[in-house]
């Protein structure tokens, strides 16, 4: 294959990228309306129409590969398929999935039968295989232009009606009350999907068209949840898949374009799943680790503070460079039940919160004191709140507070403070007596039946 793209190839690439982008946009709404697999049914339902059109063309002596007629045939049988689906779903006891399965296989089978029969009659249906798997290699510039045109129209329609269609996805009742007809918008959406499927048959093939409508939107969900960004990202991913896939197919040897485009899309999906900024696995994992650390750190600092407080040596922010000492052995006891206390200590060291030796004495630095005070305030505010407003027994409070305090941010703290009528810099009294722990170590607040250790 040549390195430079020739005229045909350029148009084809352009067409498939536009197709991918358009499918991405329309696919977002299909996904939101939970109609993703209907696209699968529709694309399989195109086969009988193609076979009939081909036969008619061949029987009348024309070239069997007249694209507009074939596509017209495809559209007709797809439309009939959609009607059949509605009929089965609404007028019989068949459920939605069964109706879809019946139309999908039934129409496809009819198409197969017709196709074989036409082949038997002598028609050369070799080119029609391209409708099943996609064969951009046989596409020419004109095809590319058709694809581009249809894609532009479909996506234009959908983007124009973006707001009402988006509304019916989230709140159909509200949309109706505003005067939008849910039925017509749904219909418009399906028509856009159908026309994309029809033109996409050549590039991607019937079997895989659903992938183009499903995968880029699904991938986009890992980057955002806002509708207009979803659309942009889905269009981008779809367009890119279309282009890259078609290019790979063109450059490579014996790589049909449909699967190439689909697998490119899947690759993007996997990347999004892992690294997507909104909800990708990597992000989630990082967030989770950060939170875990925050929890462990705050618990430790709080224990430190309360240890000193119970001995009348509560550290304050003003003045001291570091707090009074705490024997390392005592500190070890708080961390019993926490995994990896060595890593805990070393990280606390690294962050400049604690200095000293785990085997000897430990001190809070000024920064550590500040952080400890924040941690204690949060915890006690929540305790007070739960006590006052919810009337929980005191024993239950600490555990409840434990869990919730780590998600308080400054705004919420401020609100709590105003509700409780407490000034900002003080550390409120703890609601339950803080007992100085001796070396034998009374168990910490272990809920009955638990294996031990704090939750959170």
């Amino acid at each position, binding site marked *: 294959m040549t390195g430079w793209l020739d005229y045909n190839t350029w148009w084809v690439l352009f067409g498939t990228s536009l197709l991918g982008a358009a499918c991405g946009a329309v696919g977002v709404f299909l*996904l939101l309306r*939970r*109609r*993703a*697999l209907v696209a*699968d049914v529709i694309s399989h339902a195109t086969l009988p129409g193609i076979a009939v059109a081909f036969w008619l063309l061949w029987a009348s002596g024309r070239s069997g590969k007249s694209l507009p007629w074939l596509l017209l045939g495809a559209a007709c049988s797809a439309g009939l398929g959609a009607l059949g689906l509605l009929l*089965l779903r609404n*007028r*019989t*006891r*068949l*459920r*939605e*999935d*069964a109706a*879809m*399965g*019946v139309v*999908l*296989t*039934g129409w*496809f*089978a*009819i198409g*197969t*039968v*017709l196709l*074989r*029969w036409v*082949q*038997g*009659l002598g028609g050369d*249906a*070799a080119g029609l*295989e391209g409708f*099943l*798997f996609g064969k951009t290699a046989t596409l020419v510039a004109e095809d590319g232009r058709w694809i581009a045109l249809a894609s532009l129209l479909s996506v234009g329609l959908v983007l124009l009606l973006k707001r009402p269609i988006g509304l019916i996805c989230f709140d159909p009742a509200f949309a109706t009350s505003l005067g939008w007809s849910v039925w017509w918008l749904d219909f418009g959406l399906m028509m856009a999907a159908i026309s994309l499927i029809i033109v996409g048959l050549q590039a991607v093939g019937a*079997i*895989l068209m*659903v*992938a183009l409508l*499903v*995968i880029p*939107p*699904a991938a986009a*969900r*890992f980057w955002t949840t806002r509708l207009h960004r979803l659309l942009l990202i889905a269009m981008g991913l779809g367009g890119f898949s279309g282009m890259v896939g078609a290019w790979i197919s063109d450059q490579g040897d*014996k*790589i*049909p374009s*449909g*699967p*190439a485009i*689909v*697998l490119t899309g*899947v690759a993007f*999906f996997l990347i999004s*799943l892992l690294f997507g900024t909104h*909800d990708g*696995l990597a992000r989630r994992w990082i967030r989770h680790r950060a939170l875990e650390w925050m929890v462990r750190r705050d618990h430790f600092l709080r224990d430190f503070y309360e240890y000193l407080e119970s001995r009348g040596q509560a550290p304050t922010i003003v003045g001291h460079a570091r707090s009074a000492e705490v024997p390392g052995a005592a500190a070890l006891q708080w961390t019993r039940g926490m995994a990896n206390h060595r890593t805990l200590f070393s990280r606390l060291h690294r962050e400049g919160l604690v200095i000293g030796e785990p085997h000897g004495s430990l001190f809070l630095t000024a920064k550590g004191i500040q952080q400890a005070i924040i941690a204690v305030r949060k915890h006690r505010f929540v305790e007070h709140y739960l006590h006052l407003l919810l009337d929980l027994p005191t024993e239950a409070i600490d555990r409840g507070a434990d869990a919730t305090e780590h998600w308080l941010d400054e705004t919420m703290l401020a609100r709590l403070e105003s509700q409780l009528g407490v000034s900002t810099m003080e550390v409120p009294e703890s609601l339950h007596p803080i007992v100085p722990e001796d070396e034998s170590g009374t168990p910490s607040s272990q809920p009955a039946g638990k294996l031990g250790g704090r939750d959170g």
Partner: protein
Amino acid sequence: MAERMGGGVCFPLSTLPWIWEYDGWVVLAGALFAIAAALPGTFLVLRRMSLAADAISHAVLPGIVLAYWWSGGRQAIAMLLGAACLGLATIWLTDRARSLGKVDEGAATGTVFTGLFAAGLILMVQLADSVDLDPGCLLFGDLEMVPIDAGSSGWRRVPTAIWIAAALLVANLSWIVLFWKELKVSSFDEAYAESQGLAPAVAQYALATSVAITAVASFQAVGNLLVVGMFIIPPAAAMLLSHRLPSILLIAAGVAAVSAAVGHWLAIELPSRLQLPGTSTAGMMVVVACLILAGAILLSPIDGWLARWLRTVRHRRKVEEEDLLARIYRQQETSRRRPQPHSTPSPHPLSTRILRRLERQGLVEPLLDPPQWQLTASGMARAKELVRSHRLWETFLDTHPGVSPDRLHERAEALEHFTDLKIRRKLEEQTDGRARDPHGSPIPEEPGPER
């Protein structure tokens, strides 16, 4: 026979008459594969997982291609194992994508199986030189080739595909019978099954595995794309015809077998009689199954369209007849209370038809002079029941808030046709045996046994 073989995208089918030694095998193979698919398919459809059949059947493609390539031919066991793994993998991946990725179910399914299918297609094309697989045959099957792959003597005369199909059928039947109650309860009430420790997840994965293995084992015969039809369509038809699970399985099997036989005949035999080329048996099998489904939709005695229409018609006629009976009664009642001068209105032409129907049922009889109709004894009894029901309802509804007085008649009008003795007794109790309805009309007594 030689004309049936040939190159091209599968072989061109010539016009040969039905040969039992040949076509018999084809039909048998088709039937066995179809039944083997319809059995687990029934549970898929019951669990609203029809599209999983489509998904799994597509997803096993890479496994098939790889197994072919690796074993250099037809190593059945390797393929089946590969298929089982891929079937499980499809379900598992879809589940993971859905929960981990919080992707919508349809999207998750679509992503997983199209990805796998695309991979399979590429593999197939890439390995086309070393793998004796034609995409067309792979996807659409080659049922007509089944009898060719056979030996020449003894048991070997039975084509290989038949053995495979029979084994598949026995396997599917066995596991369904063995795990019958777990399958049943997990399909009906998953939460309950889990609370009872009946492990619905196991049933789910077992079903997926069975579907995958069936899809792979059948692909040579029926083709990767058309086996899905056998998973879904016969059970769908069966569910319209019966409401008991064992019968449904039996009917599904029957539909599958008939589809195979008729499908093959329509694909090969009929065209040859009409001097036309034949077509794909597998495709025809699915088409015939669809026709049977359509037949079930129309003619099912329980809720087919025909049955529904007949019921509506019967109901309408009954209401017309009863309305007329009640009207005659009321006319007589009025004329008894306020005797009219001799002028009876002639019956409306429409009601003459209804009157004739009533006459056939022995509820009215004609008086010739003056020409009018009157109720027979049984007609009178029935009319009394209707009017009694009507007026009891009016009385009852009148005492209940929320029903405005001008709507009483409408409501009672609708309800009177469905009020039997038991309900009338209750209404009487509830209205303290009042003798007149809110409009002042007397409530007739319950018609007694005298005639």
